[in-house]
């Protein structure tokens, strides 16, 4: 876990909530839930050492391996 990244992401997340929350008071509950869920996903992901972790790009590369090998040549 890298604290610097996590802390700065948290600050940004807090700023976003402070900025956006007053505007979406009238929005339906669903919007609010989506808003917080997405923020939470971002925050959780920021805790990991992302660039050296398996992720979408590596998954896709495994998935498209034959094509990748075809293009290698």
């Amino acid at each position: 876990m890298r604290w610097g990244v996590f802390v700065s992401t948290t600050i940004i997340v807090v700023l976003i909530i402070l900025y956006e929350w007053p505007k979406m008071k009238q929005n339906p509950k669903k919007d609010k839930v989506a808003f917080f869920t997405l923020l939470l996903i971002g925050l959780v992901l920021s805790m990991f050492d992302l660039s050296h972790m398996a992720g979408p790009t590596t998954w896709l590369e495994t998935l498209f391996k034959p094509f990748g090998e075809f293009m290698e040549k």
Partner: protein
Amino acid sequence: MEKGKGRLFMKNILLLILICGVTLIVSGCWDRVEVNDLAIVTAAAIDKKDDNQIELSLQVFIPKALSGGGSEGGGGMSGGGAVTMVASHKGSNISDALSKLQSEFPRRVFWGHCKVFIFGEKLAKAGIQEHLDFLLRHPQPRERAYVYVSEGKAKPILELLAPLERYSAEGLRELSDLHIGMKVTLQDLDEKLIGIVQAAALPIVDIHPPGKGQEKLQGEPYIAGTAVFKKDKMIGNLTEKETRGILWIRNEIEAYTVTFKPGAEKGEISINPIKASVKLVPEIRNKKWIMVVKIDTEGTIIQNGTNLNLSSPKSIKVVEKAFEKEIEKRIELAFQQTQQELKTDILGFGEEFSRKYPDKWKKNKGRWNEIFPEIELETEIKAHIRRQGYITKPGGMPEKEVKEQ
């Protein structure tokens, strides 16, 4: 009401924080470098040392010398002493030497204005590929910088105090721009070495010894022929005369004079070729690989040492014929040298063949080194003399000695 006010306050605070944050990012201060923190490199020389190391020498601009000399005006600049200094350091490769050099330097080395790279002869013979990699990979050095090989060590060239120019590298660059010898940029070199024939030619720089009474460092660098590279290693060189032939074939001829004897006449005529169009037409006839060099050139007479009256069409014909012969001779001399002695295709004939005969080229690609020495050269040269200068008959010659043809 109270609540609304609070929200407005909150919003303003947020905006303030935002703006402060944005100024930090947007101004791009992270990579800000002031000009007076830079050591501007004007030329670099790379020499090989005995212990498998190289020596990197940088010619660095001294801004103080320039501004001080400039304000005095007139001859202040060259009289005030050198505007550049040379710093050098050993290392296992360029970047290693550079980092060691940097640690002794109060300013950050900046390559962006470096327009001259000189490889020492020894280094050129050992191979330049790994050094080329640095120059092409690093974002600062320009692809348009000129590349040279020095006769002997490269460092002394940087140390010269060229009397005419502000610094010696500037002089070298001007020479190249005049097309005195080959003009090869970093990009050209890369292209040639990557390309299919993998051979390149670079101009050789030598130092013109200082005249009597001048200080030792007052010499001028000049271009003294061509270094021939097979792959990334220098394998030989061409003399100045042979270089001219090469320049004809490569259509880089610009500022020089052809002096020759017209036919059976006594004396010599000098012609300044003004325009030349050169076409290389590769042909394969009966399994023989032939390169036809078609040259169409125009020139002006600048000196007439014979007794021919050049205003008569007949004598012009004679001169044109002789001019054609002369060009042919030069081209053949140069070609002979590259083909028979050096066996290296620096003229890019391989590329021409591959463009016209892609199929045959593909079959014979591996054998190019065997084919190249067998290639026959044919020349079709058309020379025209367009102008004769301010006088018609030979200057300072009595009427009756002039030969009317």
